[in-house]
């Protein structure tokens, strides 16, 4: 019953949105969806196994989306006054459909259907990215659509090869696949295509090109969801196939590929963070870095797998808060060029503090959960003898930290007494996300 409500609401609410005559009503409609979403998520957490076919991994991703969506829904209240009703209506409808597509990807157990829903997230979120309807946002949406379409197509090739890997009674349902009968040759080939295909959507190098444009051009609440929720949804099918690879005794190939793509992603992020001038692109490259770290964690295996899940959780919460703060800064200065932004402390002290707190937590200082996850990753690298890669990783992380601190502190310092005020929700949403992240960083959750 609950899964039906979960998908019926966005469809019915989309129809209702067509007749609503004020932006605030649209915002409340989305807020109601977010409240319903988190209620179902909490119910699913308290009564595990009672939320349709959703397993623990799906529920984990679903709950992250719930918290982020609620924060974003509150953040949007009274923020749409300057937008035309028609455009805002389309935006609200696609926002609900985007969330529904991500929910469906978490819920289903059929690899083919997961693929369809990940594809659906691409179409719905592209409409959200191009909301500003400016030349640059249209270009970003096109780039996103096109590169992710190619990735999705490659992932489909992987799924076709996965069918070939099954000598008899082929199935795409995770519960029906007979792992011991899989052909190693086809399974390996299939996994490479699936990893590269969904890796494009995760934002892993070398197929990350869409991510900085899309995340920087989208409105702040959308960027928060793209970075905090969508990247996880794209990771979900990879983690599901990963379990099959491990059970089929081919975990080593998967781990090696994760390590290569992870390191490459952190390297690419390091290089581009050094030269970016747009603070939203800075956060986008930070997402590439963090997705790279997550892949490194899964590549290392053992205790680092726990670090991987913790990193997914911490990164989602903190990065969403960071993007919402970036939205506040954009509302105050109407400029994305960090060199044109200074004296944030004088203009809006609360946003400045939140911005710096988000910075500290994304860099992995305590009490951020990323501190623990990075610690476990480094420990796992030492224990497995990856000393030189570990040194290289620490150096790259140091360069990223230096670059992000230099830019962020530069934006906060300076003299300007012209105060700027923002709605209360624009402070409360990132504060709540950072607070949850800090609590999780102290009280570490256990993952089965």
């Amino acid at each position, binding site marked *: 019953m609950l899964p039906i409500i979960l998908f019926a609401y966005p469809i019915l609410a989309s129809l209702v949105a067509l007749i609503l005559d004020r932006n605030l009503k649209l915002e409340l409609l989305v807020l109601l969806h977010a409240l319903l979403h988190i209620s179902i998520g909490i119910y699913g957490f308290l009564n595990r196994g009672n939320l349709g076919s959703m397993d623990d991994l799906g529920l984990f991703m679903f709950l992250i989306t719930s918290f982020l969506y609620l924060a974003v829904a509150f953040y949007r209240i009274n923020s749409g006054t300057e937008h035309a009703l028609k455009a805002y209506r389309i935006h609200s409808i696609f926002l609900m459909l985007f969330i529904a597509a991500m929910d469906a990807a978490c819920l289903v157990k059929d690899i*083919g259907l997961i*693929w*369809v829903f990940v*594809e659906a997230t*691409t*179409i719905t979120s*592209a409409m959200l990215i191009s909301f500003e309807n400016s*030349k*640059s946002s*249209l*270009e970003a*949406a*096109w*780039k996103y*659509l*096109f590169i992710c*379409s*190619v990735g*999705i*197509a490659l992932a*489909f*090739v992987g*799924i*076709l090869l996965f*069918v*070939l890997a*099954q*000598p008899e009674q*082929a*199935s*795409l349902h995770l519960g029906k696949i007979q792992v011991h009968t899989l*052909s190693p*040759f*086809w399974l390996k080939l299939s996994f490479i295509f699936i990893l590269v295909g969904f890796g494009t959507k995760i934002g892993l190098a070398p197929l990350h090109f869409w991510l*900085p*444009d899309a995340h920087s051009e989208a409105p702040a609440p959308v960027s928060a969801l793209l970075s905090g929720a969508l990247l996880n949804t794209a990771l979900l099918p990879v983690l599901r196939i990963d379990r099959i690879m491990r059970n089929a005794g081919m975990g080593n190939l998967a781990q090696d590929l994760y390590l290569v793509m992870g390191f490459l992603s952190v390297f690419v992020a390091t290089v*581009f963070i050094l*030269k*970016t*001038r*747009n603070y939203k*692109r800075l956060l986008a490259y930070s997402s590439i870095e963090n997705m790279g770290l997550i892949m490194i964690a899964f590549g290392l295996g053992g205790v680092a797998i726990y670090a991987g899940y913790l990193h997914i959780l911490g990164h989602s919460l903190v990065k969403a808060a960071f993007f919402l703060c970036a939205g506040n800064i954009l509302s105050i200065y109407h*400029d*994305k*060029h960090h060199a044109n932004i200074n004296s944030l402390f004088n203009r809006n002290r609360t946003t400045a503090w939140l911005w710096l707190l988000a910075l500290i937590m994304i860099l992995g200082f305590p009490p951020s959960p990323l501190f623990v996850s990075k610690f476990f990753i480094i420990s796992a690298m030492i224990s497995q003898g990856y000393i030189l890669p570990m040194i290289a990783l620490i150096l790259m992380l140091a360069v990223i930290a230096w670059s992000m601190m230099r830019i962020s502190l530069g934006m906060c310092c300076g003299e300007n007494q012209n105060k700027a005020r923002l709605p209360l929700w624009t402070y409360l949403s990132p504060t709540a996300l950072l607070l949850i992240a800090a609590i999780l960083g102290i009280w570490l959750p256990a993952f089965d």
Partner: protein
Amino acid sequence: MLEILVLAFGVTLLFASVTNMLHSLIRILVVQGLILFAVTLLKSTQLNWLSFGFIALETLIFKTILIPWFLSDTIRHNAIHREVEAYVSNFFSLTLMSVIFLGSFALAIFSEQQSGKLFPLEFGIAFATIIKGLFIIIANKKLITHLMGYLIMENGIFLLSLAVGGDLPHIISLGISLDIMLSVLIAVLFIKRIKSTFDDADSPGHLRED
């Protein structure tokens, strides 16, 4: 008969490697659509009548008529220059296509030993088409050519899904959802009329000031 159709499909890839005009690429897409329709007819026994009807109509109307017509219209409306404007020469493109064929057939022959249920010629050509589509996307400047590369890649995936579909017929229908994505891409290009090429936002000298 299937062998002849699949070989003809392979020949279209060689033509795609030597053409410089956008309209020639569109004609190649029309021919590929017709071949895929004919292959679907030959495979009708593997599918139920509903899937067969849907897939046959999709290949004939969508791939062979609508998409090429929309592409031609977009080129005309957006006043796009009629040449492909590739980064590489035709000679290089043709040589690479031969290498792609060689690699794909090597994989196909090897794959026959791994899985007896696969027809190597079909698999080899389908795989070569996917790689060729990717190459067109990488080796060309224009967005419309990227789109055509994506279409060629998608045709290769369709051929591969027909080869695999005997085991799991609904996978062919899943693959068709790629066309929804394609429709969105074409709609964006057609309605929004975004410019024909992009600058790299992160390349030196092109860093965004916004």
